[in-house]
């Protein structure tokens, strides 16, 4: 997009009065919109720095008398951030250990190996992208309640999060799309040299696919960090709560914290995604245009 030399309005148009007014209208709208998007964030941040008395002050003021940075320390302790962040990371570690190998191998099979009824199989995987997420929730819950064949109850264990996460058709689609771009010649040459398929996947294809792996890694981390509903349903025990479940329970269920501490907790929970987004914008937006199709 950066390299575009022109859009609808050309530089010549801008010399005309009507177009110029329209253009100024665009700028004003964009600025107003930016304020509409950014100002609430500033307002909430200031709220997190206020004392409880200042939050309830009428008429309200934007700025607190002095910034109470200690609110963040209080929130850090009140929401037990260290413990619940650790739980979130445990969930993410499971994703890396299960989802990545499973989806990489599946994508490799679709890209480079012979499969009976390949189109049909691929369709069976991709159809799951069309089914609305809510349709899964209740059957999946019942399946985890009593796992077929094994007859164990996986609810309230991390497996209830890890195992369903492994069945990610979107990741397979993304990886397969990237693998397909790998030059076939390299794969053929390695096969002639006697490399095993596992070797080709781990030594050649994966190292060449670092950009897409990074994108998936970041998207999955953001996803795990934000995820609420499914973890909330299957991880009821407070020792397994994630940050989002804790935030929900402490703010919306037991209303004991003052608003400034609630907002400070909200800010703390938002910092990691924002930091990661700013650091890896390029990778994430690549995925957004793709995941937008997923809905």
């Amino acid at each position, binding site marked *: *997009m950066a390299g*575009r030399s*022109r*859009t*609808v*309005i*050309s530089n010549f148009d801008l010399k005309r009065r009507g*177009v110029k007014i329209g253009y100024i209208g*665009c700028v004003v*709208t964009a600025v107003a*919109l*930016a304020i509409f*998007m950014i100002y609430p*964030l500033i*307002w*909430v941040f200031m709220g997190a720095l206020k004392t409880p008395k200042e*939050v309830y002050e009428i008429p*309200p003021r934007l700025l607190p008398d002095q910034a109470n940075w200690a609110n963040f320390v209080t929130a850090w302790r009140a929401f037990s951030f260290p413990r619940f962040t650790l739980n979130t990371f445990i969930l993410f570690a499971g994703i890396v250990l299960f989802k990545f190998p499973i*989806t990489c*191998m599946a994508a490799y*099979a679709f890209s480079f190996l*012979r*499969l*009976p009824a390949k189109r049909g199989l691929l369709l*069976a*995987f991709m159809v*799951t992208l069309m*089914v*609305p997420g*809510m*349709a*899964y929730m*209740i*059957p*999946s819950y*019942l*399946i985890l*309640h*009593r*796992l077929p064949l094994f007859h164990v109850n996986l609810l309230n264990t991390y497996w209830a999060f890890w*195992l369903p996460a492994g069945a990610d058709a979107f990741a*397979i689609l993304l990886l397969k799309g990237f693998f397909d771009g790998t030059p076939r010649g390299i794969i053929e040459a390695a096969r002639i040299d006697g490399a095993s*398929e596992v070797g080709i996947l781990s030594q050649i294809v994966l190292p060449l696919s670092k950009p897409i792996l990074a994108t998936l890694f970041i998207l999955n981390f953001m996803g795990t960090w*934000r995820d*609420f*509903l499914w973890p909330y*349903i299957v991880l009821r025990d407070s020792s397994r709560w994630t940050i989002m479940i804790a*935030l*929900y329970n402490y703010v*919306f269920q037991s209303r004991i914290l003052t*608003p400034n501490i609630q907002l400070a907790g*909200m*800010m703390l929970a*938002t910092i990691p995604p*924002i930091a990661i987004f700013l650091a890896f914008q390029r990778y994430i937006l690549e995925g*957004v*245009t793709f995941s*937008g*199709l997923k*809905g």
Partner: protein
Amino acid sequence: MGGFSQTKVHAALGSSYQWARLMKNGGLGLLFLLPALCVFAMFQWCPIVYGLVLGFQKMIPGLPPTWVGLANFKSVLSDSLVILSFKNTLLFVGLCLVFGYLVPVVVAIGIMELRRGQGFFRLAIYMPNIIPGIALYVMWLWMFDPAVGLLNQILGFFHLPPQEWLLAPKTALFSLMLMATWAGFGATALFYMAGLSAIPEELYEAAEIDGAGVWQRIRHITLPALRPTMTIMLLLQILATVQVFQEPFVMTAGGPNNATLTVMYQVYRYAFVYFEFGKAGALGFLTFLFLFILSFLYMRYSRIAHSEEV
């Protein structure tokens, strides 16, 4: 264990040559696919089938299910709360489309025209998207607060009467829509911008040389080029908003006076509050059917539109 079963397979096949051939003709591929097949069978395909079956069963966890025919569907459709949830959901979908569907198109076109600061504006409108759902709800809980919230401050600034937002049945659903639109706006606009940047510059150049004005260029080049993106976004937004659940679940618990009770919330209540999984399955099935027909119609329509172009 593995070695033993392998020799058994070898013996069954007669020679290791045949084994190698089997591997080459798709066996190895299936082996690579096996872990994915297992988790997909268990957590994707099985739930889909199970979800279809569940509506026809009386299901209490721990007890063997019994078949009850259409009883669940009958009792679900005669439940006045379900009818109310249909109305609320449709209203929510409609409100979201009014504010969240056409406005991002206009904004995307406008921002793409800017000569300076495009990067900043993109980032600014995308920022709310990054806030995790629950954190967003905490934030808006205080934005909506009738006494100290930002929204009533803004209304006061324009000398408008203060509202009760989430606390009044009249405004609760509208408030949830406002929050959802604020949070999702940027991603939609960014999606359109990607579509806009794919329009060849030469088209505008040629149109300008032929004397087409700015409006004519937007009407005859920009909008037609954006049409496929707009249709898929319409479908995706309907699919997403029909399933609205988390916002009312967390922020209003369906209240006040069931004003924000949505279909998916009713499904959740059937399952996890009343433990009537059969009814939850039936209502879920009906929603799924509706969304499926919608997607099917879209695919037919887009195929027809596509073949017309060719």
